[in-house]
């Protein structure tokens, strides 16, 4: 689709908004429908559209596997790390209440924010990585 000017221009304009919407879904998951998983999927969709229009080579250049692997592992480590942090803070595993020594409700907020972020990062990276792997096979 590299040769269609309109598609290219529209995609260029649209992709930032897709990513912005993903961040909105990520952050707004506490109040309305949405959360880490949905945000991750939308975030990945932004990259996938970019890859479809501008070619997989450019997407790989922007997101080499090494960086994606950091995302894939990093999100899970962030999630599991919050649990380990709560162990050190004196609670059981994944007990966010102890993360804030004064106000357990605030600790819960912090914990949920962090783990949802972890889910989002892992899902976005995994979905992008899987798409790149398939598309790269097709490309050759």
């Amino acid at each position, binding site marked *: 689709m590299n040769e269609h000017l309109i598609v290219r221009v529209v995609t260029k304009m649209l992709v930032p908004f897709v990513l912005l919407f993903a961040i909105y879904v990520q952050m707004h998951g506490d109040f309305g429908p949405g959360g880490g*998983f949905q945000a991750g999927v939308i975030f990945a969709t932004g990259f996938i559209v970019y890859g479809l229009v501008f070619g997989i080579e450019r997407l790989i250049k922007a997101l080499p596997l090494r960086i994606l692997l950091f995302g894939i592992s990093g999100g899970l480590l962030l999630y599991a790390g919050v649990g380990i942090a709560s162990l050190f803070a004196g609670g059981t595993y994944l007990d966010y209440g102890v993360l804030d020594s004064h106000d357990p409700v605030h600790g819960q907020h912090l914990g949920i924010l962090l783990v949802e972020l972890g889910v989002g990062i892992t*899902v976005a990276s995994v979905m992008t990585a899987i798409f790149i792997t398939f598309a790269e*096979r097709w490309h050759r």
Partner: protein
Amino acid sequence: MTEALVFFMAHANTWAATALLCVGLWVIMVRGNLFKKVIGLNIFQTGVFLFYISMGYVRGGTAPIVVDDPDAVYSNPLPHVLILTAIVVSVATTSLALALIVRIRESYGTTEEDDVIAADEP
């Protein structure tokens, strides 16, 4: 008449879920194309999703997001949580299955189960 209708309404969702389960299982068992089997798995799993979500519904309820009205009745959020997890599992299974299909296609040159079996016969 109304009694039969009430009975039907009370079970329609479960029966629809059962129908999806059966269609999915049938595709998995009968169709020989590997893609078709993945589609069948997806239909099969959505049957289970529908079953869980239906049991969480409360008549006259609202989505489980806190509203100002103190008398609000909420649908049960727990099945929703379980099915969110199950949907994620089904995406993961689907993508792994597709990766395996690509591998099979590259080494056998086909995505039909019969051809794969025939190719390995001595």
